[in-house]
């Protein structure tokens, strides 16, 4: 046992990084013209030449960078304004309560909801038409799929703000913000300015890696881009996925070259962001040294709450829109509500959505179970060997989230095909694990380490072996964090689009792949059913994670957490 447990961290690293490295390897070779299964023998630079000659490749590349930077920058700004202006207040605690549901809403469902809100024929336009606008017909405005990718950026921001806010709250717990803020305020600084000057630099150092993850993700996202992004041309990631699906196997070379471009782009943009960090640090120093007490706080503070509230409201109103559509009869513009309601859509799509729900459930459960085994094994090994996770260990943990999905998944698919590996749930589960493991680790790590070891000492003093302490004391006491980590794992798995699509070879249809496939058909009622089912699949585990400990430990108040 002691020996076995030291192997778990290595196995975890393999499960997490193995597919990434294999996938990158499988990308590099075809990118340089080497794909023997398709009759290409490299090396050659032809794929890159073809990539450069692709019409619109410049615009597609630019879109990847601009939408990624804009989405990340806006998200960080909004989070800083909310946390700075409001942490510790009642409004903040309210937002905090909304975080779990907001986080668990899959990107695709949030994007569908947002699309119906902001389209020229969407809910917002319907609310003010024709009364305020005089629009009897929707105006011919390019809001969705706009050529600058602004709608897509908005779709990313509403999902990334909750994520970064959660990370910020965790970081705040380790930085004693209250003392610093008190000193700053007693020196006459406004609340927000004082927080930005005294607390934010320390918080930022803690949430740096999550921000990089957001940047890499936003630059290479596919599902949100398909739903909200530009189409003439689409961002680079969408082009790569299209090429992967081309009947001409030669296009795989182009896709691989595109994937390497995407990887280089993300690395370069991360470098740019770090450069930006330095500039902001300089400017920030100067700003702090000037000693301004915050004359604009009166405006910025409410702005933070407004934007924070707006991102949350966008997701909830979007989901409400989906709910209404799923029961809608004919619904013309500019009516705010459908002409009639009915169960017709649910009767039509309910059974098929149920099948996809089951598939989603099995994949997510298997992935999360495996992830828990790995993570608890790692944490227990860490505990018994008394070695802390180093900062380079933390980087390794974040690595699979920093490598763009579109860079290594195509290569992984080509590799799997090359070795004749059967498509289906197995490979999909392995691919999901790459993304689920880090999140489960991040979610469970802190509570696991924060466990009061004196409980273990007491148990050991009574004669319990380390294994018995683990099974009978530690794990039961950590029921709540373990369940929350499971909910996180499940919701991450439910939301996975690209790994399911590319690795599953079409035979694994989850709610997410079905919903995105329906996006092209534009049948809002069917999309609504799948979007809601997807949200439920991600949300219910969170509700259970809160409810189960309260039931199991109904006579152990201290364990409610």
């Amino acid at each position, binding site marked *: 046992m002691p020996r076995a447990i030291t192997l778990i961290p290595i196995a975890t690293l393999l499960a997490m990084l193995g597919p990434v490295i294999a996938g990158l390897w499988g990308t590099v070779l075809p990118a340089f013209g080497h794909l023997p*299964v398709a009759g290409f023998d490299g090396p050659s630079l032809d794929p890159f030449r073809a990539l450069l000659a692709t019409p619109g490749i410049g615009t597609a590349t630019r879109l990847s960078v601009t939408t990624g930077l804009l989405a990340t920058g806006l998200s960080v700004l909004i989070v800083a304004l909310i946390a700075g202006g409001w942490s510790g207040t009642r409004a903040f605690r309210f937002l905090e309560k909304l975080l779990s549901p907001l986080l668990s809403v899959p990107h695709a469902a949030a994007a569908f909801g947002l699309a119906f809100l902001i389209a020229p024929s969407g809910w917002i336009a319907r609310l003010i038409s024709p009364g305020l606008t005089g629009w009897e017909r929707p105006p011919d405005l390019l809001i969705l799929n706009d050529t600058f990718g602004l709608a897509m950026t908005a779709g990313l921001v509403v999902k990334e703000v909750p994520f970064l806010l959660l990370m910020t709250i965790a970081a705040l717990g380790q930085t004693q913000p209250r003392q610093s803020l008190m000193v700053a305020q007693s020196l006459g600084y406004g609340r927000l300015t004082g927080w930005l000057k005294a607390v934010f630099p320390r918080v930022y150092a803690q949430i740096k890696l999550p921000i990089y993850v957001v940047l890499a993700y936003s630059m290479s996202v596919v599902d949100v881009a398909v739903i909200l992004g530009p189409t003439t041309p689409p961002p680079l990631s969408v082009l790569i996925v299209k090429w992967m699906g081309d009947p001409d196997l030669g296009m795989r070379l182009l896709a691989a070259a595109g994937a390497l471009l995407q990887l280089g782009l993300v690395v370069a943009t991360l470098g740019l962001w770090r450069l930006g960090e330095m500039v902001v640090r300089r400017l920030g120093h100067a700003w702090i040294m000037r000693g301004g007490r915050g004359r604009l706080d009166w405006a910025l503070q409410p702005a933070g709450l407004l934007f924070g509230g707006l991102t949350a409201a966008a997701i909830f109103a979007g989901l409400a829109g989906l709910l209404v559509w799923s029961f809608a009869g004919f619904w013309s513009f500019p009516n705010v509500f459908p002409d009639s309601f009915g169960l017709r859509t649910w009767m039509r799509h309910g059974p098929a959505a149920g099948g996809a729900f089951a598939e989603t459930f099995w994949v997510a459960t298997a992935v999360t179970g495996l992830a828990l085994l790995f993570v608890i094994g790692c944490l227990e090994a860490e505990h018994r060997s008394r070695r802390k996770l180093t900062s380079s260990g933390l980087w390794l943990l974040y690595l699979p989230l920093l490598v763009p999905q579109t860079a290594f998944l195509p290569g992984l698919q080509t590799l799997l095909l090359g070795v004749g590996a059967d498509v289906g749930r197995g490979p999909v589960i392995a691919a999901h694990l790459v993304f689920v493991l880090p999140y489960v680790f991040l979610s469970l790590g802190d509570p696991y380490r924060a466990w009061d070891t004196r409980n273990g000492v007491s148990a050991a003093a009574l004669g319990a072996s380390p294994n018995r302490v683990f099974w009978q004391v530690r794990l039961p006491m950590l029921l709540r964090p373990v369940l929350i980590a499971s909910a996180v794992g499940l919701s991450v798995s439910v939301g996975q689009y690209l790994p399911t699509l590319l690795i599953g070879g079409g035979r694994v249809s989850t709610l997410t792949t079905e919903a995105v*496939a329906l996006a092209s058909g*534009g*049948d809002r*009622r069917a999309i609504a059913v799948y979007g809601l089912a997807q949200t439920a699949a991600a949300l219910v585990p969170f509700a259970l994670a809160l409810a189960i400990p309260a039931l199991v430990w109904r006579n152990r108040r201290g364990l409610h957490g």
Partner: protein
Amino acid sequence: MKHLALVAALLAPLPALANPDPADWDSVLAEAQGQTVYWNAWGGSTTTNDFIAWVGMRVAEDYGVTLEHVKLTDTADAVTRVLSEKQAGVDDGGAIDMIWINGANFAAMKDADLLFGPFAEHLPNWSVVDTEGKTVQTDFTVPVEGYEAPWAMAQVVFIHDTADLAEPLGSMQAILEWSTANPGRFTYPQPPDFLGATFLKQALVDLIEDQTPFYSAATDENYAEVTAPLWGYLDALTPTLWRQGRAYPATGPAQLQMIADGEVDLAISFSPGEATAAIANQQLPDTVRTFVLDKGTIGNASFVGIPYNSGSAAGAMIVANFLMSPEAQARAQNPEVLGYGTVLDMTALNAEDRALFDALDLGIATLSPAALGSVVAEPHPSWMTRITDDWISRYGSAQ
């Protein structure tokens, strides 16, 4: 040892011979029992998905075949899959057992020997298929030769909301004039979506008098000259389109939502009954009607093909045969279900089966067979491929 080699050579199935043998229908029936057929079909239309689910229920009842619909966003994905499998040496038990296919994808698969067959003309229901009046033996000018089985006829119609556009428009030129007078009220699916590509072909054949070049492969010599009128037309049309042509709907069905939302008044469709079906599904207002162009519109057949490495070819043939049955055909033609044209010859049916079709009410927005007018055959697939590529670099990738 020599004997052994000889016996092995004799026992080895000839590559050209279909196995299982479609001519021996009883053994096909026996082999299909209990098989699972993965049908890869475009999944963007909810009405089609429902129809396929119904087919699955029926073949499970009658033949013990389990049908799984693998929903594609692009049929080319399935072609890729089979091609990659062949390259990787997966010659048996491939991931795909049946593909909804036609046109360029069929030509590509047939060319690369990726199809099982010939089987279609051995299917029992082939005897009632209308081989005279309907283009079921050529697919975009490519001879079918039994490598795919027809199951639906499609013809281009235009869906218009009479509340905003009362009168049918008789030609592509008339559509341009109307769109110029009513900017922002028309668009078409973004090529390479097949319906978007069909719109381009429809425009081309309507703009040009001499259509003979379309029925052989496009050449470097004739391509630029023949397609010049199309690009002139699109240069004039694009600024008048919905969103000035800076965004397009992804697929045909996406246009239905746009009509219902009042975003556009006119849309192209490849299914004469789609509008009626959509009205029944509350996806379109009941003021919607359809029209065809004066010179006729493009029509073709939808087929199903079986990949050469399918492990359930017998089951797939059962499904293909069931799709051609009067029961399935009448259901597909029912506008409340799909509204697809039938491939069957009404005169070859017995009275009972014909009654299934006679009982159909085609619906308010469906043109009668006579009103649908003449069908323009599909051009050679090379035209579609080249026009689509050209469209992407001209209009689909803002330079």
